[in-house]
Every structure is written in structure tokens, then in C-alpha cells.
């Protein structure tokens, strides 16, 4: 079973996406802030990380930077899933090695699922 880590402080989104992922046969682990998210990524080595940017404790970009610095986590694909849309943010995410940058409000869960499948290679 593929394991997906969702780092997101909105618990409503955690639940919504978590319910779907479970039904589609994935295992989802959730983190409500950046610090827990980074530690979980190291401990659990998920197949994919969904990362919000505006997060308590540690900003999403810092999480992404640290993930890409650590040898155990740098190969894990990271999809940035945020509601920020400035070009600087998109550029920064790509520079730091994000596999994709999705603006949450513009995507349905269905479409997010498509991106997840693609990133995991299914």
C-alpha cells in the first residue's frame, strides 16, 4: 500500500482528502504543522508528500528545503498544495525541487487525485 504524507493545518482538508485516499486504497498520514511534517517524513519515508506553504511552526518552503537536503527524504516527490499564487512562490517551489505546484482552490479533489497518481507513477 502506497503511503502519502499530507502536511496541512486545515483539518477539514485533512479529513476530506484522507477519506478519499483511504477509499482508493492509499495509506495517509497527516501532520498539522511543518515541524511534525518534516519529522514524520523522516520517520515514515512516505511515497509522496503533499505540502501546504502557510504552516505553523515551520513554513512549507523550509520544510521542502530540509526534505531535499536530507539523504533519506530527498528522493520523495513533493507536491506543493497551497492557496498562494504569486509567481515568486511558484518559482521558489520549483527551485527547491517540488514535483508540482497546485493552487488548492482551483482544483477539485478528483483532479488532485489525478496529480497524486501521476506523481507516484501509477
Amino acid at each position, binding site marked *: 500500500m502506497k503511503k502519502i504524507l499530507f502536511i496541512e*493545518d*486545515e483539518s*477539514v*482538508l485533512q*479529513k*476530506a*482528502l484522507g*477519506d*478519499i485516499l483511504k*477509499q482508493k486504497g492509499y495509506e495517509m498520514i497527516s501532520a498539522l504543522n511543518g515541524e511534525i511534517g518534516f519529522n514524520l517524513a523522516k520517520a515514515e519515508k512516505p511515497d509522496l508528500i503533499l505540502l501546504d506553504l*502557510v*504552516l*505553523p*511552526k515551520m513554513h512549507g518552503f523550509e520544510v521542502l528545503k530540509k526534505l531535499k537536503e536530507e539523504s533519506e527524504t530527498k528522493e520523495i516527490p513533493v507536491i506543493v498544495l497551497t*492557496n*498562494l*499564487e*504569486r509567481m515568486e512562490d511558484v518559482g521558489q517551489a520549483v527551485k527547491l525541487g517540488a514535483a508540482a505546484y497546485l*493552487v*488548492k*482552490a482551483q482544483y*477539485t*479533489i*478528483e483532479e488532485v487525485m489525478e496529480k497524486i497518481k501521476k506523481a507516484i507513477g501509477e
Partner: protein
Amino acid sequence: MLKRIFTQLNISAQCRRYGFSLWRCPQFLFLVMGGVIALTSIVSYLIGTRYITDPKMVSLIILVINTILFIIAFVMTQSFERLAEVSRMKSEFINIISHQLRSPLTNIKWTFELLTSKEIEMPSGKVEEYLNNVKENIARMVELIDNLLIISKIEQGTFPVLKKETSLENLIKKQVSRYKVFAEASHIELNFYPQKNLPEVFTDPSLLKLVVENLIDNAIRYTKGGGKVKIDLERREKDLFFKIKDSGVGIPKKEQGYIFQKFFRAENILKERTKGSGLGLYVCKSIIEKLGGKIWFESKEGKGTIFYFTLPIK
């Protein structure tokens, strides 16, 4: 005469729109500079033809005129810089606002998709939870938009104030009983102690309600893991004096100067919660000042915060 030219050129209105006083506004300064140049040309011609025997005097006058022009040009450059800053702040404002609006909107969108999807089976017990999520996030959006509209009205100066005889005591009582459930859920004791025989105040109750709501909401929200929130209301000479004391996280000393600024959120709060809009206290201050009162606070990080406001009785 000068005033009529200004109104015709509509300069003061333009300057107001930028939020500049006349003496810091580029359009006005250009006009002044033009005036000074025209005037000095005439004057220096007159002086030049009259005092031609004293070239020292002429060069001194030219020096003074140049200095004046230099100062005006300098102030003008500065005002352009401020104009650029205003425009930068505006785009930053739109960036923050769109993010803040999108967060509850995404919650609603995704939850709704789950509720209506034919593909996904919804366990029956979960439907209610999901509907509650939708309801909460709609309320979050409404609150944010209300705050934004108030702010926009405050900044445009088209802020309607409808004053009438109001019992601040009853207004607070109503809010306290409304917040009681929320407080109890967070293990917080919420109490209100009004002085006896308080007079009514001539003020705008719907605006005041927003202030009281914001202050109670903050006090409860930022008192983590149980504690006390105590509200006092008393008469102090010609004012009513409101005090709300919490035993919450407090505001770090170095950030206390920014607390009433638009979108400002203290660092210790930001580490725990990213959901607030940073608009509440800005709205409170704008309203209280508009109603002729004062608002301030005392706070110690880790100990708690006390917010005060006064309102003139008449």
C-alpha cells in the same frame, strides 16, 4: 482664487485618494514648483534689471531660489517613493486577502465535492460532520468579508455611524452568553461584572457589537488549555470604561507596537495558528476611535493580556 484652481484641477481629491496630505502629494508639489519657477523668473528679471550694478546681490537671490527649488524637488521625490510603497502594499494586501478567502473556500469546495460525489461512499455518521464543516467555513468567509468591507469603508471615509441610546451592559451580556458555550468547550471561565446603575451611551450598537465580539473571541482563542476571561464595565467620569482580562499567551514585548496594525499577527500566535486574519484589532481600533473613545492594552507574554476601551457617555 488659488483654491478654485486646485478644485478645478481636482488635485486635493486626487491627493486624498492616495492617502497623502497636500504637502506630500506629487501633483500638488509639481504645481507649487511650477508656480515658484514662474514667479522667480519674473522676480529675477525685475531684480536683475534693477540691481544690475550689484551682481553679488543677484547671485545671492539666485542661490536662494535654487535652494527652494531643490527642497521642493527633494520632497517630491520622497512622495513618489511613498506612492510606490502604497502600490506595493496594495498588491501585498490583495495577495494576503486572496489567500485568506481561499482557505475556507477550499474547505467548502472539497467537502461539498465529497458530499455530492457519486463515486465516493459517505459513511452515514460522517455526513453531519461534513455539513458542519461547510457551515463553519461559510461563517469564516462571512466574517472575513464583513471585516474587509468595514476596513474599506473606514479607509474611504464613507463609514456610516448610526448612533442611538444603547445599553453597553446589555450588549455585553448578550455576547457573553453567546460565547459561553465556546468558552466552556475550551475550559475557560468567562465572567462579566458590570457596575450597578450604569448609564446608557449614545453610540452605534452594531459597530460596538463587532468590537465586543472581537475582543471576547480573541481572549478565549488565545487562552489555551483553560483559564479565565473576566470582563469589567464601569463609569469613569464622562466615559464608560471597559476592561477584558485573559490569562492567555500574551503578546511578546517586541511586537506590542504593531498589534493594531492591519494584518499583523504576533509571532507566538503564528506558530500555533495560521487561521486568523489579522484584521480584528485593526477593526476594533478604527471603530472605537470613530465613536470617540480610546482603546489600548497591557500584556505580558505567558501571563495574559488586558484590553481596555473607553466610550464617551454623551
